[in-house]
């Protein structure tokens, strides 16, 4: 369970940190409720599904401040509460979400991620759970069924094969006979394949303040490059960086206008030329404008292009070359926008865009649909390109940093939670 605890701790955020956030609110909590909460035990909480919502919320806050002796138990308390509140009364949950939004904690991001992945999770995890319920023994049938689930998540046959091999080995080694506990092993192995011992894969290579950072966006048509740029601009601004946008999609009708609208929305200047002009020239202008204005980050849009169009890929190389000529180590990030609904072709996309522009990270868009985007595991495995962000909707704030553990957690959430409860009762 050690992996799981680590995962849980990371996902729910540092307990002490959460406490600080909640502190001011706790002072308002009335005495009688405090009494009540003192007596609360994890079991009692779980047995109170009909808890009045307001009380449930308060108690949960109090629960966090209880003298911390057994963190695991506390997290469960907090967690169970959150789940109750969420499941039972969604509307009441919202004000709290907003409150957390002000200072996004690891926990609230997980919530958001989970919400975005809810659709994915519903179908995927319920399938895993069905599976567990149906199979008591871990045998070939079980593995075959599991393989099907992963294939349906677009993970791709090679990666699935590798995972299945690892799982079979693990099951043999640990002598796992029944399906209880197998979900943790699955999650663990998926994360292992993804992370390969590396951490901090999602940090953007941003230059120190005062120096210009250039981020180049590439990808095939219709994956959401422009939208993602809008969202990323917003994100960087919220981190206190000034942002400028370069309208490098001079080909598609209306693309420049689209970026301009995003620029207006987030309040970022857009450097543009007329439709049909040379995108490299736009970049040249943009870099000079950005330098002159002392902007922190310049985000460059490019036209969508299919990776097998040699001329267009050459054009993209040129765009990158022009940027590098103006600023030697730029672009500091080349982000490939990838549609989560894309199947195995995503691997080819990643490979060829990497060859042309040395892609440094992926933004997995449209993850709020029912597609799972499992191909990112294969991309990471075969091409070593990490996912840096995920797009979870069309709103300005719907861009979140990718975290392999959270991603897997999103897929396996219910199963994992159940296991934790079981482990706790023992």
């Amino acid at each position, binding site marked *: 369970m050690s992996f799981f605890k680590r995962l849980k701790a990371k996902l729910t955020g540092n307990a002490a940190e959460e406490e600080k956030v909640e502190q001011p609110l706790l002072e308002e909590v009335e005495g009688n409720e405090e009494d009540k909460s003192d007596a609360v035990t994890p079991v009692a909480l779980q047995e109170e599904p009909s808890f009045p919502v307001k009380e449930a919320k308060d108690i949960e806050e109090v629960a966090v401040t209880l003298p911390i002796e057994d963190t695991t138990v506390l997290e469960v308390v907090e967690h169970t509460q959150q789940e109750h509140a969420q499941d039972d009364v969604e509307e009441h949950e919202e004000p709290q979400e907003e409150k957390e939004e002000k200072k996004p904690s690891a926990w609230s991001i997980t919530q958001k991620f989970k919400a975005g992945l809810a659709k994915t999770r519903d179908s995927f995890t319920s399938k895993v759970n069905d599976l567990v319920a149906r199979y008591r023994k871990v045998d070939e049938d079980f593995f075959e069924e599991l393989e099907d689930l992963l294939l349906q998540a677009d993970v791709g046959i090679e990666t699935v094969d590798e995972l299945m091999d690892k799982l079979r080995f693990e099951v043999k080694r640990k002598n796992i006979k029944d399906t209880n506990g197998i979900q943790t092993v699955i999650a663990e192995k998926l994360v292992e394949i993804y992370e390969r011992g590396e951490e901090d894969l999602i940090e953007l290579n941003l230059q120190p303040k005062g120096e210009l950072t250039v981020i180049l966006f590439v990808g*095939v048509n219709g994956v959401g490059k422009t939208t993602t740029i809008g969202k990323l601009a917003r994100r960087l601004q919220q981190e206190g960086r000034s942002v400028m946008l370069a309208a490098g999609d001079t080909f598609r*009708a*209306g693309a420049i206008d689209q970026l301009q609208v995003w620029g207006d929305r987030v309040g970022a200047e857009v450097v543009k030329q007329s439709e049909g002009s040379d995108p490299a020239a736009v970049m040249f202008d943009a870099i000079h404008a950005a330098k002159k204005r002392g902007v922190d980050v310049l985000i460059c849009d490019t036209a969508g292009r*299919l990776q097998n169009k040699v001329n267009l890929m050459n054009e993209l190389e040129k765009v990158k070359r022009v940027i590098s000529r103006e600023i030697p180590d730029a672009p500091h990030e080349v982000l490939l926008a990838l549609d989560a609904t*894309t*199947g*195995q072709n995503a691997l080819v996309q990643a490979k060829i865009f990497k060859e042309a522009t040395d892609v440094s990270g992926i933004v997995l868009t449209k993850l709020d649909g029912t597609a799972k985007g499992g191909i990112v595991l294969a991309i990471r495995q075969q091409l070593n390109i990490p996912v840096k962000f995920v797009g979870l909707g069309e709103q300005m704030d719907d861009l979140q940093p990718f975290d392999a553990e959270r991603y897997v957690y999103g897929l396996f959430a219910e199963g994992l939670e159940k296991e934790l409860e079981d482990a706790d009762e023992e």
Partner: protein
Amino acid sequence: MAFEGLAERLQGTIQKIKGKGKVSEQDVKDMMREVRRALIEADVNLKVVKEFVARVSERAVGADVMKSLTPGQQVIKIVQEELQALMGGEQSPIKFNTKPPTVIMMVGLQGAGKTTTTGKLANVLRKKYNRKPLLVAADIYRPAAIQQLETLGKQLSLPVFSLGNEVSPVDIARQAIEHAKEEHLDVVIIDTAGRLHIDEALMQELKDIRGIKEPDEVFLVVDSMTGQDAVNVAQSFNDAIGITGVVLTKLDGDTRGGAALSIRAVTEKPIKFVGMGEKMDALEPFHPERMASRILGMGDVLSLIEKAQAEVDMDKAKELEEKFMTQTFTFDDFIEQLQAVKKMGPLDEILKMIPGASKIKGLDNAKVDEKQMAHIEAIIYSMTPAEKTNPEIITASRKKRIAKGSGTSIQEINRLLKQFEDMKKMMKQMTSMATGKGKKKMKLPGLDSLFK
């Protein structure tokens, strides 16, 4: 990285069977396993794959294959036949309303290519069907979607109906149909906003638009690169609003396009058009047999044969074969070959059609740049007849002259000479292979970089 086609996949299994004399049920099973993997890698939905494989195995076990001397080919044949059958027979044209205007709705996920397809479709309607289409900008959500359609309308000189992004799409559609009647425009194409199939509010909006006037066609626009999720998307859209056909976009990419099969299997609606490029005339009718070959990664043999037969002179081909064997292949022959191939169409298209091209080392990533071909031609044309027949005599000063004459550089000439040498070597290999020896992997050295 390039995914293996079915033919290559079956190679291994067939090797095992060879010499056994009889094909067992287990062998068929093994082959079916490869069929399954090939289809999954082509992004065909797993459930669809399973049903499909079950059907194919039944036929395969039912004697044909096991008795056959060429079991591999038999399996491929059965698979292709079944695949083609599943893809649907002949293409169905657009259904027009006897009482104009005909209403066509374009629906789909974000980024599938609805707006671009709307423009292309209008272009086809005008050119091929002699209609007067009206484009309706009903995507009020995505920034600048309306501008995009307006720009396309301007490019095509077609009228675009828009009311800005403040009016509801339902009202826009209603007024557009009225407008079309007044202006005697006989087809109304409504470009709706991209939406997730699970977004109930937006799906309701589509139902409302549908409610104004029963559309004659509802086209689901799907990205041909879509993976396993294609089934969910198609099913949801079909259940909610009842699609009448599918347009598969971005098929000019290098995806296998298994989504086509998935969608067809779950909705049983025909694929009517395929998008083959970003230009406004790049919308083509759907060919089930071509799609079947493509999904299997087998190349479009039929089309290639058609083209080759039309262009290749049989006598010349014999002569060439002779030259291959005797190693007297010269630059003259080379350029003749180039010309013949060029007549068949764009080279990368042709390469795609060759079965197994993706497997041959060097060819799998052969990207053909037509400009590069022109350079090669220029270089060869700048050689003297003696140089063409006997490239060994090309010295440094001759190279300089050729470079000047062809407007290229000495490096390019060196490269061409080297590649020509390699090609000759390769031919030697191939001819020795043809004479029975060696399971050596086919290899065309330098072909990948030849046209770069």
